[in-house]
């Protein structure tokens, strides 16, 4: 094998930076002094540069936003239904969105508890109240008894309701 043949097989790896420094230096010296190998070197460089330019111009036309939208759509289509819930939970549990999530959760829990009377430790929790609903003596009375699971709502009119100073013991209120 002539020296030119050996060098021409090494021009590619030399251009790719895959030769040892000493071997690369030998190829460089030969290419500079040999018209045939010099032409081979230029052809390989031209092929590389043209192909790189073609691909790079083509890929620069690809915009990220629509590309990502389509990838995202495919991901959403193929993932199981609960994955969306997991991602949502993860997104609200990470700062700074959690800033509002924690107080909101506390308010919701307190609100729910305030609407419900929970018997604590098995205690019976009876409840009774009388509320005046207008200035003409109309009232509503509410009685709830846990033991019998009974709730009574009673609307009635107090004949002396207009007199707000009347002693409560003399009221003709409801008799349960």
């Amino acid at each position, binding site marked *: 094998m002539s020296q030119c043949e050996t060098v021409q097989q090494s021009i590619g790896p030399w251009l790719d930076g895959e030769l040892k420094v000493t071997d690369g230096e030998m190829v460089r010296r030969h290419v500079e002094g040999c018209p045939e190998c010099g032409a081979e070197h230029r052809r390989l460089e031209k092929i590389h540069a043209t192909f790189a330019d073609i691909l790079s111009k*083509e*890929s620069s036309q690809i915009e*990220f936003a629509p*590309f990502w939208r389509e990838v995202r759509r495919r991901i959403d289509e193929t993932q199981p239904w609960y994955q969306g819930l997991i*991602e949502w939970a993860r997104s609200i549990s990470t700062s700074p969105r959690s800033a509002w999530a924690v107080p909101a959760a506390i308010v919701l829990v307190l609100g729910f508890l305030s609407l419900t009377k929970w018997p604590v430790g098995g205690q019976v929790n009876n409840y009774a109240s009388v509320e005046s609903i207008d200035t003409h003596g109309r009232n509503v009375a509410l009685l709830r008894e846990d033991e019998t699971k009974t709730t009574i709502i009673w609307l009635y009119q107090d004949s002396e309701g207009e007199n707000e100073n009347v002693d409560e013991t003399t009221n003709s209120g409801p008799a349960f």
Partner: protein
Amino acid sequence: MELSDWQLVEKCQAGDADAFQELVSRYHQKVYMVILGLMRNREDALEVAQETFLRAYRKIKSFQGGSSFYTWIYRIAVNNAIDAQRKQKRNPLDFHESMDGLFEARNEVAKDPFSDVHDRELRENMVKAINELTPEHKAVIVLRTVEGMSYKDIGETLGCSEGTVMSRLHYARKKLQEKLRAFL
């Protein structure tokens, strides 16, 4: 500070979709370039590039970091493109056949008409010459061109030795030179 690919991969593995979006933003053009180099037209290449990232998203939990992220994503891209081409041969009507306008110089003002025509001819013939290579030869030349990958990384991506990469590259370049001699 910009996170490394591996840090983003770890975030993805913990379920962070934004980290995956960042990885797609870093690699979508290069992955598209690799696939376009292996396939015949833009539409099919775009479709396969998007499918590549979908596959990467599904598999990312199993990515251990034994290789770099980019060799991993290019491996998926090359396999997808080769699979798509096999499918293309079986069902040609499912794919875009036209190569019209592919790789033509875009939006360029010709400074020298002769050089412009010559350049156009070189580009058109290069596309044909590349398409006549086998998928394995195309893959090495595309990976070397797009990313300037080392033979070791190309070998990792394609699952072959550095020696095989070197001989495939040599053969592919020889073929391209033969077919393009009149335009070089």
